[in-house]
Every structure is written in structure tokens, then in C-alpha cells.
């Protein structure tokens, strides 16, 4: 693997890993492996230790949407009785569960489902419906909302007890004792992947950026699906090498002139990825900052269940507004952004309903101009190209104005 990987560039390697991942999922049951469906930032360490084949519905829905295949599923979900106001990832996935067929990407039916509610509460309901629909066991790891600044010890204790239950349930489902040795190894690999990811993504923050920050949306997929595998650590190490190379050769993945550096706040609009990208490119806007580099830098003490619990409980969406605002302001600073684009994602209430107040809080801290636009992570109906373009135009004007003001001041 090591030598083969070296022959491929990161784009080829990513493509290869994606194909390999989905192929292995399709073959998993035949090879006697249990299949589970899990929410994106699940403590995969436990599942990996038990050689469970893990499908990630959020990733799957995004892949379907990016390949312009969402509408048949969205319509099917509506016919099943699901309101169009529900998260579109959930709608696509619940429809897929009923159809179990896709020309774009196939995932096999689950033997059980695992959910951790660290990015939203919607997941708890979504997985209830999956468990009931497939009539399979449901493991919920509940990480209570952190209205306090830190993840408190009481929360850590509660989560650790759930980890113990998780192990017991896994042993029952898989019919074998929990593999603690492998668990330790997976934790080590996951930490290596997290460090490699963090390092690779940190290049987007450099000025000028050797990376095209838009690529983070694609790079992220293997952080979701293969965090516990060495192959993904190698991918991110490869990306880092390429960025070093770009810096040496004064090159960038971004094909245009880097006039403005921005932070994209929120999930991508998968059905309009190329439109969004082109609009930014035309305006010389490079994504330099994102919440993703930190969100996926899931590092923890390898022998500490406390640390593991705290890491999975402390995901941005699960934190109080002050911590979220400060975290974003830090990103703005580190990445030297000129502006911020906030995605008002029709699917994501937890992000949207704190966002207006958070925007004000952050603006009070750093006066960096921002715009917001209405979109959706995977429902193509909830986005307007014209609005997006106009807002980007407005942001460019604001960033230009602020630049001039700063020049005058200096």
C-alpha cells in the first residue's frame, strides 16, 4: 500500500480510496462482516476495533446530491410522509433506505445503527426511524448539549458509561469479545490521521494559499469514512507533501489570482458545488478558512476514555455560542481572511438559529465583512444562483472598501 500510494497524487489517491471504501462496503456482508450505518462524527474507534463495515448516510446523501441525483430520493421521501422541511440528508437517506438502490453510490442495508448527537439533535430522530424501518438494534451515544463553556466532567462520566454499554452491545451484535488491542491500535491510527488532516488543511491558511480551500469539502470525505485506517493518514500526509511542493515552487491549487481570502461557514451546497466554485473563482476569492480543519482534528490522549468522550462531546455545533464565536474569530485571524460567507443552510437548524447572533458577536470582535446566502446542503430546490452571485458581489465591494479604509488608516 505504502509504495503504491506513493505513485499516486492526492487526487488520484482520494478517488481510489473512495472507490475502495464503497466496494468494501458492498462486499462486507459476504465476507462475514457486520454492517452498520452511523452518524458522521461517531466514535468509529469502537466499530473499527470490531471490524464492522461502517456506512455514513450523511456522506452518502452528499455524494448523491453532488452527482445531481437528489431529486428522486427527495420526492420519494415526501411520498413516504416526510415533510420537506426536514434535513435533506435525512430525507435522501430515509428514501434510500426504502429503495436500497442508487446508480450513483450503493451502500448495503445495516445490521444495526449507531448515532451520536454531537452535531445535531435531528440525528436522534433520523436514526430512530432507520432502526424502526430496518427493525435493527439502535445504539445511541448521547452527548448532552454544552451550554457551559467546557465539556463538564459530569458529561464525560455519562458518556463514558455509554461507551461501556456500546462495547457490550457490540459484543452481542458481533458475537465476539471486544478487541481491546485493536481498539488501542485504531486510536493510535485515528490520532495520526487527525494530525495529518490538521497539518494538511493548515496550508489553506498560508498567504498566498498553496491550497484551493474549496477542495476541503472533498478531502473531508475520508475523514468521515476512514478515520481509523492508515490509508487515510497517508492521503493527508500526501496532501501535505504536495502543499510543501507548491510552496517551494510558488504554486497554488487555486487557478486564479488570490484577490480575497474568505472563510466559508457551513456545509457546502453539494448540488451547486461547481456553480459556487466558479462564482468565487471569477471574483478571485479563495477559501482560506473553514471550521472543518479543527472539527475533524479529533485528537485525544490514546489511553484516555475521558479524553475520547470529551473530544466527541466538544464538537462545535454542540457548544455554547460564546465558544463557537470565539473559535470562528480565531479561524478568521489565523487564516487572515478578508471576509466571511455564511451559508444559511435550510437543512440545518442548529447552525442557522444561532448564526445571526454569532455573526454579530464575531463582527463585534473583528469587524470583518460578511454576507449570508440561502441554500441547502443537498436539496437543489432551496438555492438561487442569482442571490448567491449578488451576495458575493456585495461581499467583494465590502472587502474592497475595508481594504481601502485600512490603507488610509495605515
Amino acid at each position, binding site marked *: 500500500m505504502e509504495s503504491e500510494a506513493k505513485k499516486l497524487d492526492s487526487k488520484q489517491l482520494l478517488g481510489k480510496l473512495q472507490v475502495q471504501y464503497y466496494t468494501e462496503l458492498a462486499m462486507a456482508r459476504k465476507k462475514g462482516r457486520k454492517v452498520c450505518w452511523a452518524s458522521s462524527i461517531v466514535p468509529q474507534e469502537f466499530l473499527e476495533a470490531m471490524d464492522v463495515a461502517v456506512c455514513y448516510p450523511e456522506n452518502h446523501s452528499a455524494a448523491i446530491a453532488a452527482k445531481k441525483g437528489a431529486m428522486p430520493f427527495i420526492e420519494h421521501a415526501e411520498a413516504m410522509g416526510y415533510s420537506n422541511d426536514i434535513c435533506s440528508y435525512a430525507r435522501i437517506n430515509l428514501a434510500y433506505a426504502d429503495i436500497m438502490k442508487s446508480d450513483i453510490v450503493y451502500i448495503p442495508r445495516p445490521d444495526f445503527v449507531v448515532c451520536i*448527537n454531537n452535531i445535531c*439533535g435531528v440525528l436522534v430522530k433520523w436514526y430512530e426511524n432507520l*432502526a424502526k424501518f430496518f427493525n435493527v438494534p439502535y445504539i445511541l451515544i448521547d452527548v448532552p448539549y454544552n451550554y457551559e463553556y467546557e465539556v463538564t466532567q459530569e458529561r464525560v*462520566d455519562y458518556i463514558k458509561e455509554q461507551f461501556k454499554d456500546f462495547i457490550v452491545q457490540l459484543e452481542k451484535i458481533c458475537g465476539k469479545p471486544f478487541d481491546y488491542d485493536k481498539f488501542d491500535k485504531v486510536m493510535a491510527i485515528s490520532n495520526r490521521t487527525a494530525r495529518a488532516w490538521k497539518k494538511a488543511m493548515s496550508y489553506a491558511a498560508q498567504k498566498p494559499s498553496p491550497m484551493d480551500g474549496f477542495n476541503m469539502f472533498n478531502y473531508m470525505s475520508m475523514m468521515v469514512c476512514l478515520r481509523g485506517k492508515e490509508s487515510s493518514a497517508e492521503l493527508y500526509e500526501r496532501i501535505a507533501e504536495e502543499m510543501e511542493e507548491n510552496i517551494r515552487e510558488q504554486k497554488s491549487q487555486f487557478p486564479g489570482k488570490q484577490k480575497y481570502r474568505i472563510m466559508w461557514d457551513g456545509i457546502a451546497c453539494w448540488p451547486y458545488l461547481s456553480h459556487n466554485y466558479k462564482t468565487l473563482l471569477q471574483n478571485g476569492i479563495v477559501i482560506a478558512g473553514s471550521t472543518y480543519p479543527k472539527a475533524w482534528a479529533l485528537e485525544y490522549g490514546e489511553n484516555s476514555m475521558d479524553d475520547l468522550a470529551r473530544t466527541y462531546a466538544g464538537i462545535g455545533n454542540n457548544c455554547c455560542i460564546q465558544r463557537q464565536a470565539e473559535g470562528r474569530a480565531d479561524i478568521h485571524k489565523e487564516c487572515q481572511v478578508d471576509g466571511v460567507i455564511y451559508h444559511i443552510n435550510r437543512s440545518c*437548524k442548529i447552525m442557522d*438559529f444561532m448564526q445571526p447572533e454569532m455573526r454579530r458577536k464575531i463582527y463585534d470582535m473583528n469587524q470583518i465583512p460578511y454576507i449570508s446566502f440561502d441554500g441547502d446542503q443537498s436539496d437543489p430546490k432551496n438555492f438561487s444562483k442569482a442571490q448567491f452571485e449578488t451576495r458575493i458581489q456585495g461581499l467583494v465591494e465590502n472587502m474592497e472598501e475595508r481594504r481601502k479604509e485600512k490603507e488610509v488608516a495605515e
Partner: protein
Amino acid sequence: MSEIREIIDRMNWNITHISETIQKKKENGQKIIGVLPIYAPEELIHAAGMFPVGCWGGSTPISKAAKYFPAFACSIMQAVMEYAEGGAYKELDGFVVSTPCDTLKCVSQDLMTACPGKDVICITYPQNNKPEHAVRFTMTELYKVKAKLEKVCGHKIEDKDISRSIEIYNENRLAMQEFYRITDENPGVIGAKDRHIVAKSSYFMDKEEHTTLVKALNDMLRQAEPTNWTGKKIVLAGIIAEPNEVLDILDEMHLAVVADELAHENRQFRTLVPQGIDQLERLARQYQNMEACSVIYDPEKKRCQLIADLAKNHHADGVIYCQMKFCDPEEFDYPFVKKACEEAEIPLLNLEVDQLTETAGQARTRIQAFAEMLDM
């Protein structure tokens, strides 16, 4: 009948004159705590000698809330933020906010800006509510709420006072359970809107007084002549059955509510606080015992079956699912509610509601069509 009317009017007066009640209590030195949906340890507020008042939105046009929310937030929380931003909560000394859904998590944070200087006391109940470790976790949350309430009221909340408050609240729950039994056995003895007022008024008056009124009402209703109801009987499900205009339509169409599982009504009364030595543990165990609720982890989707079972057990002709627009937990349950009702051959109306009076017109057409269908 006029005595019944008198009690219900008095309950309704408490709902519509909440500002006066609060004013009077403040003059007497009592502190006021706003309590947001869905569940909260109200007993602790009561034990502290403070007055808990329900903050479940209301029928108000939305403009100021747009500072916090895009248009696709549920109308209860839109109204809460509208009131908060507009100063309607200025007399309150603080809030207790639980975070059972994503919208409430955000509200718990946005309220701090909208109501500066007021204590926003959060509590996160565990979703995984059955295991013992969840009980221990709930207790730690309750302990924090208690400490924060003590800061607001300025004195310690004694165990004996919590115990007394629990008894008062349990007595209220029992009186409400009895009320539901009596009215369900004699359909139409009380209209849909009046039935709602009886439950709703519990959020706007002293618990002891509410219990006294409900008990008096129960005595009268018990003695009422059988209605020999010829209209249809329905079950209401959902978060809340408002605005009142929707309930007026039910009355007009001779649809008697024989049971409900509304979060705003029956879900508040159906689980007693169990006996025990540690008072906070008792409150935690009540939460442990709760189930079949859209905002508590329900892997078997018991709630969906419960709705169909309620209709069967109460010999209802149909179910109206009051779908609070933009409420995720309820929207996710709907397909399974539909399935359970279809299997039980119970007609089901998915009625999208918000708290605005203006939308009642659309509800009329849909309820009318449903009532006609039940008649066929």
C-alpha cells in the same frame, strides 16, 4: 352548567391577565421565572418560593424575532424570541430553558442577548433516559439548576420544600388525570377549547389554586348529565393545539376531544414524580420514567403506536396530528404515526399548525373535509 363556565372563565382570566398576576406578585416581593418548553423541574422554582410562568409562545405577528431566526423556525420559538426582543419578558427575573431540540439549544443562547441581565438557566436532560447513569447525570443537571435558582431567589432551597412542592405538583397531575378521565368518559361535556384552557391555565397561576379549580370542576363534571354524544370523537396529537380558533372550529364541527398526547397538555401531567428519599433523584426518576415522547429517545417509536392506541382505547373516530410547522421531532414521527393509524384503521389528519390566528382559515377547510370524511 354556569358554574362550570365560571371556573373555566376564571382559568381563562388567568391566561389573559398574566401581566397583572405578575405585577401583583412582584409587588409582594415574589420572583418570577419563565419556563420554556418542553420539560423543566418546575418543582424547584416552586420550592424556592418563586412563580413559574409558561413561555410557550403566543399568537403574535413576527418581526423582531427575525433578528435571530430565518423564517423556518417553529412558531412557538419565533414568538418567544419576538416577546423577548420586544420586552414582553421584562418583568421576569430569569428563565429555565431545556434543550430537547436544536431550536431550543439555539434559543437558550439567543435569549441571553435578547434579555440582557436576566438569568438564563439551562438544563440538558439526557436523551438516553433509561439507564441508571442517565439518572445520575440528570441529578447533576438538577443540582446545577437548583444552585442557580438559589442565586436568583437569594436563599437555599430546602429539601423539605422540594418534597412539599413535588406533592403539590403530583396532586395537580392527579387532578388533571382525573379531569381527562371524566371528560373522556362523557364526550362533549366540555368543548375542545375549554378543555385546552383547563390545561393551559396551569402555566399561568399558582399550582395550588389551579388544583383547587380543577378538583371543583371535576366534581361538577362528574355530576353532569351524559351528553349522549352524537358528534364524532377525536384524539389530538402534537406539541400544542393552538391558536384557539382551531379549537373553535372543532367545537363548531361537533368534534369532541376524548384524549390528547400534546406536549403542552397531557404529556405534562401523565408522569408522576415517584416516591424516594433524595428529592433531586425523585425528579430525575420522573424523567427516567417518561417515554413515548417526540423529544425523548424512542428507539421503538412507542409514541407512534401510543397515538393509535389512544384512539382505539378511547373509541375515537379519528386522530388530528397537530403538526407544529418546522418542528423536526414531530415531523420525523409522522410517517410512523401514519403507519400505526393505518394499521389500526383510524382516520388521521396531518394538520399543519402555527400559533398565528391568520392561519386558522386554512385549518378550517382541512378540518371540515376531515369531519365530513368521518361522517361518511
